[in-house]
């Protein structure tokens, strides 16, 4: 994966390659695909848990002032 193994060789080349991250020139497409999967997955997971939380809370039918009873007093 290492794109640079010797800085002297790298910087003294006739044309210095700018991209120096691991796997430069070969891993970018794969990284984007992984990123998209993570991205979509996060949305699915969080949307599901938010819906569950909201419907659970909605069933309890609290009054507008109930929250005042759970403000701690110390």
């Amino acid at each position, binding site marked *: 994966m290492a794109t640079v193994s010797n800085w002297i060789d790298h910087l003294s080349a006739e044309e*210095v*390659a*700018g*991209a*120096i*991250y691991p796997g*430069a*020139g070969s891993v*970018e*497409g794969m*990284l*984007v695909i992984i*990123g*998209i999967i993570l*991205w979509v997955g996060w*949305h699915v997971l*969080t*949307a599901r848990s*938010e*819906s569950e*939380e*909201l*419907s659970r*809370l*909605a*069933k*309890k*039918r*609290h*009054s*507008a002032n*109930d*929250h005042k009873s*759970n*403000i*701690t007093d*110390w």
Partner: protein
Amino acid sequence: MTDQLGALTTIFTEFYYWVTVVLMFLIHVGFCMYEVGASRYKHHQHTLMKNTMLIPLVTVTWFFFGWWIYWAFPTGPGIAPSIMNESTALITDESAFSATWYTATSELMAVNLGDHISGVFWAAFLLFSWTAASIVSGAIIERITTFAFGILAIAIGSVFWTIDAAWGWHFDGWMLKILGYHDAYASGVIHAIAGGFALGVLMVLGPRIGKFSSSGEPRNIGPRNPWLVTVGLFLIYTGFWGFYAACNIPIFDLGPEYGMEGVTYWTATNIYVTPTTLSGITFNFLMSLSGGLLAGYWIAKGDPFWTYSSGLAGVICASAGNDLYHPIQAMIIGMIGVVIAYKLHYWVERKFKIDDAVGAVAVHGYAGFVGLVICGFVLNGYPSSGYSVGAMWDGTTYATINPLGQFLGAIIMFVVLGLIPGYIIAKVLNGMGKLRIPREVEIAGLDYEMMESAKEDEKAVSSATR
């Protein structure tokens, strides 16, 4: 970078943008504090989380496609030819400022010894994206789901504002060429669009429970923590300094850029690569802030919430032309914007039952819109670009700044790219049942469960003896 002067210019520019990004982070800190201060106790933590999570949501999408849109869309596509390749297609060729260099797989979108600017410039624009999404966030607190807000934040932060930036905030943008559009510090491209988008969402989302009486009279749900609101707005002002600096190119030789034979002219420029100075815009920033505060204090009869917001509205209103205005012009324009925005806010609230919890539509949307229109009159006849001055509707050259072009530009920002997309996306989310939290949850408070469990925890801790 092989010669010292070139290296100094490059590293200075890199560091300059980096500093602006750090400063602009304060805008987001300010928005978070401001929103929490404006929300009621039972919704505090969800309000904070909603605005915090837009950071990763917009950042990742900005990396994947938002930045690409900015470089690809200046031509429309299909509206006016690019000065780089003379084509009206999306700019995805091999030219110097093509979008092809800014795909997520590009080597320039990473550590690259041959490019010291892309990352910091990308980040500066990203912080503008956060701001656009954050403006919407404040208006819709206490009743929107976090999921819906995430979708809306991505839409405004990584799609619609970046399209408007490509059209009207890019040296090659079609709005400059055809309309003579000028918006140096984003009255329209950030503020009017975000205000319009927020209004579109609010039209579908509806007011908070209790905001309007049964006879339709609006009730005031004022800020619950005025100190958080105060500090938040001061932080937004502070971040706005960074924003102004980030809208400039700090050092640039305009001689060769404009094709002037043998001429060297180093200067700071605005985003359109026309000359201005950091010094001059500092005059105007402070004078328009002062104009806004003065007018706000007067019209809101000393109400702190509106006075602080009016300072911001003053800057926003003058921002379109703050690269060229005289400081006193900037101050007067800031005052005019505040009076119109304040009056419109309450008129729209009463007439259309729109519950804009923090006045975001007024401060950003109306003030931004008015600022664009005023700019058309005050800067009438100035060139919108340094490249080739031409006539309106020509399309191959750049029209001069003019009132009609600015008015049409304001409509494009506020309505076409702001209100309409916001309304449509909110309608779709509403149709899916994903837009608004259940009524029972809104009444009890989004944080009810968190507070309930905190109570149990704290009971246990307070009764402990060891």
